């Protein structure tokens, strides 16, 4: 099954819509609650990152009998130092983002924690791409 969603930069009203839709679909597929939670938490923090840090993003979700693979690609400032950005507590979030309950530099580490395989790449000035892969069986 292939799904895709658009995310708007700065759009905190709609951030979470894709995660919500994916959660509903995974429930219908009778996937375990523990795995659903891992997938949607990772996706939700990634959605929030596009809203908080980028100008537009696209999510593609591919579900097979073995794996849930999510790709989030955005247009935005990108990340110059990925190793630094991955550190817990590192954040360049604005005051507005912090007032939303985010911007503590915990998103990327939590995305990695909730992924079986996590890949991140970025071109400064162009954008960022994340891949979040979770296996259905172990």
């Amino acid at each position, binding site marked *: 099954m292939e799904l895709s969603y658009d995310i708007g930069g700065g759009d905190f009203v709609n951030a*979470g819509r894709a995660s919500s839709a994916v959660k509903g679909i995974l429930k219908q597929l009778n996937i375990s609650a523990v795995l659903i939670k891992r997938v949607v938490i990772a996706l939700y923090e990634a959605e929030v990152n596009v809203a908080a840090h980028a100008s537009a993003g696209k999510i593609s979700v591919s579900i097979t009998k073995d794996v849930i693979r999510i790709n989030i690609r955005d247009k935005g400032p990108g990340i110059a130092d990925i190793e630094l950005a991955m550190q817990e507590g590192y954040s360049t979030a604005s005051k507005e983002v912090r007032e939303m309950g985010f911007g503590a530099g915990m998103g990327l580490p*939590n995305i990695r924690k909730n992924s079986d395989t996590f890949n991140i790449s970025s071109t400064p000035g162009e954008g960022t791409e994340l891949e979040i892969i979770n296996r259905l069986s172990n």
Partner: protein
Amino acid sequence: MKVKEIAERTGARMLTGNGGSSREVRFAFSSDLMSDVLTRDYEDAVLITGLSNLQAIRTAEMSDIGVVIIARNKEVGREMVALAERNEIVLLKSPLSLFRISGVLYEAGLKPLF
């Protein structure tokens, strides 16, 4: 503890439709930082927060948190109520501060999650 008792002890008003008052929770977690809420696992838990926005409800949805209390009578938007209802989250609003809600419910027997 039933939601009804939580509401009574904290002077809270239930903002989502009926049916939620008989829901039962055993644990509670207080936070305004949604990223922090999202790092933990919940079962039978209530989230107590001073953050009154859509992301607080989204966070509860993603974290499988069934009951949310908004502290200090912060204004709760209609969209928040609708989102909570869609996700079968019981949404309450209390005039008490985050600290007092936490204290009252702790004393009444709700267990800390962490």
